[in-house]
């Protein structure tokens, strides 16, 4: 911990950053924290209790515009940052990325190539609870699966916390706010909620880091992160790794599978 604090203090002292995105202690568990100076930096924490993907704040223009920003990034945040680079959303010169491994070791990344190299040799952190639920859902018949998701999504009241928690949901106008035409019903109803989730997941295809923040953010505990997780598996199986191309869906390789085209 002190290592992170010292590093960030040093960055502020050198006037290398104007803002640092990290976590501080909250009432129940650590919460996102925006340190503006070296004194703030002493409040920083980073451990297993930290939830969410901090990369989500890197595209909040009101927060970061024109500022030199530092961030403490977990494995998944690094993955999201790499994808945000692919999508022209980040300025390398204004960003200081401090990666924190599962062993707690710090490493400073200069740009996307270094992040990609790190991600290539680092396995994603284990998620035993998710794996258990995925295998349970995989074992279901289509009818059971439909029932499971209908049941789960009937609880949704479209607060869009899943969208707010996602680093990839940075559009200034989301498809749910487009009303000419009205693609998605604005009110909450089971099928309409499904419409929204199906759209969200399609928009994540080849982009999602699988961090699970959407599921964590859901106030009703609907495991919607499993939908993006499944999408990620499908993309991997059909089109190979997303890391090399960035835009899996809008790029073409001759060896891409086309078996699903009727």
């Amino acid at each position, binding site marked *: 911990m002190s290592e992170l604090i010292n590093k960030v203090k040093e960055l502020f002292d050198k006037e290398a950053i104007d803002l640092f995105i990290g976590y501080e202690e909250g009432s129940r568990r650590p919460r996102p924290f925006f340190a503006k100076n070296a004194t703030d930096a002493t409040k920083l924490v980073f451990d297993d209790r930290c939830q969410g993907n901090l990369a989500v704040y890197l595209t909040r223009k009101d927060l970061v515009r024109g500022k030199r920003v530092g961030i403490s990034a977990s494995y998944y945040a690094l993955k999201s940052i790499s994808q945000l680079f692919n*999508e*022209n*959303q980040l300025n390398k010169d204004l960003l200081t990325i401090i990666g924190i491994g599962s062993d707690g070791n710090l490493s400073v990344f200069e740009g996307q190539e270094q992040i990609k190299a790190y991600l290539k040799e680092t396995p994603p952190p284990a998620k035993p609870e998710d794996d258990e639920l995925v295998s349970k859902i995989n074992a279901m018949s289509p009818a059971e699966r439909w029932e499971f998701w209908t049941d789960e999504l009937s609880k949704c009241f479209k607060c869009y916390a899943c969208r707010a928690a996602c680093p990839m949901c*940075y*559009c*200034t*106008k*989301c*498809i749910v706010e*487009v009303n*000419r*035409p009205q*693609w998605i019903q604005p009110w909450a109803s089971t099928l309409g909620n499904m419409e929204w989730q199906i759209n969200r997941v399609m*928009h994540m295809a080849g982009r999602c880091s699988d961090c699970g923040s959407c599921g964590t953010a859901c106030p009703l505990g609907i495991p919607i992160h499993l939908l993006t997780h499944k999408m990620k598996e499908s993309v991997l199986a059909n089109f190979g790794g997303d890391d090399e191309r960035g*835009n899996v*869906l*809008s*790029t073409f390789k001759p060896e891409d599978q086309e078996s699903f085209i009727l």
Partner: protein
Amino acid sequence: MSKIGVFICHCGENISATVDCKKVAQEAANIEGVEFATDYKYMCSDPGQTMIKEAIKEKGLTGVVIGACSPRMHEPTFRKACAEAGLNPYMCEMSNLREHCSWVHDKSDTTTEKAIDLVKMLVAKTKLDKPLNAIKVPITKKALVIGGGIAGIQASLDIANAGKQVILIEREPSIGGHMSQLSETFPTLDCSQCILTPRMVEVAQHPNITLYNYAELESLDGSIGNFKATIRLKAKSVDPKTCTGCGICWSKCPKKKIPSEFNAGLGMRTAIYTPFPQAVPNKPVIDKANCNYYLNGKCKVCEKVCPTGAIAFDKPDELITEDIGAIVLATGFDVLKPDFFPEYGYGKYPDVITGLQFERLASASGPTLGEIRRPSDGKIPQKVVFIACAGSRDPAKGIPYCSKICCMYTAKHAMLYQHKVHEGESYVFYMDIRAGGKNYEEFVRRAIEDDGANYIRGRVARVYEKDGKLIVRGVDTLMGAKPVEIEADMVVLASAGVSNCGAEELAQKMHVSYDPYKFFAEAHPKLKPVETNTAGIYLCGACQAPKDIPDTVSTASGAAAKVIGLFSNDELTREPIIAVVNRIPSHDVSTCVGCFMCETACPYQAIEHEEIKNRQGEVIKTVARVNPGLCQGCGTCVSFCRSKSIDIQGFSNEQMYAEVMAVLAD
């Protein structure tokens, strides 16, 4: 408030035979927003168009829906009529009641109901139409002609003589193509080179033609009027500027036993060579695959003997990029390798040769200086068998088409042989004689009646060697399928014309469609024979299908006329059916977030980056912008845009949605 006029066409009986047109018009009149609806026998006729124009003026229509044929046929007609009545032409839409309804269904109430639905959909769309203006794109008035055979030569000269710039690329060291290899040409028996070489020289000397020999198309971007062509200038190992073409290098080259492509393998050439004496340009190249220096690093004899120091070893290929307005494909054909039919013994017996090899034997510039001599022992053959349709019209062998030129050149070969070997006997095995063409039938009759060629209608089963003779076993179907056996000294196979090697790769590079035999496909077999489906790319000659010289030259001039027509305008008018990134007034905001997924998705490289700046000139945001000259309106970008910030004019998401909803509504 929309005031839509609906006009239902009977198309004679094409629509009214299965659709109740009157009822469609009556139902259409009840659709919300429809001001006027009627039906008529021929909407495209002058009275039909007048009816539309008058309704626009009298009823003050804001949009028009024509229920008639495919928009591909008459949309321009109706849009023009609307424009003449003062309506923006893009406020006129066509509902395809013929191809999409009357032609594909039987007469019934449901067919009429479907027609009503189709009209409802288009009314819903038309209500959301916005006035659009045609796009003007500047045209680069420079043509690229690919292939320097007679087709490419003719097309280049025609375009150049119209005062337009031409770049002609040829992958071989010289232009001339197959025609330069021919001896005499049917039906007049004039010497091929005598009529071709003046054209070749004209190409080389023409101020409007830039000739790149030993060059190939590397890649092609852009679209009609504004292509970007990257051309690979293959390293010649000889500097053409310094070389005088004196010929000392090839006379001294120690590598002399390379089968000459120009002589169809019957003669030999050196590793540094020009293909034939009248080559244009008449500067040699080094064939790297056969040169001693490139193979073992030693030799360089040519460098030592060159009086001007023109030899330049180890130079890399050069890539150049040219701005091009239109392209003519003239890449020609190839001859089927006769090892395709082992039963005729080609490759096994040296005296079984192809028609192209016979051309070289009969040619004054050929390996025997025009005397008909057998490749095996140089003797003059006393009995020659010509086999027509060697591969062509043989579905079992995968070539069901007729190669078209073989009947005529086989008659010519028999004739040339009889002219040169007076006491010789010639036999022609044929399936049918196809001599359609001016003076063609007369020519074949001359070969049979005046020159005594023996024509046998039947196919040859087998050719084999016995006691120094080639035994040709066939059948004469006009004599009751009597078996025929001829002891020949030489056999000539009229092997099928096939697509040129590399044709498929080139077609894919240029997005030009091709047929199952890899011949390039024309846009319409009758009405657009020299256009491809890709606008701005034309084709001519035998790259389309086997063709004789008159047809090749005609299509070349046809393709050139298309290019000249295109270049006669300063600007190209294009349909405004293109993608647009939304910009909310006062034009400084867009919902585009600049992820540029559209950029990777776009097959036409039409997406650009545009910076939105504030009043201080600082960049607030970088968003996508569609280059209207490059966009083809395919809509791929639209489907990738998560925030729906990009849309196709005239086919907006809102319009498509409204169309679907119009059908689902009841």
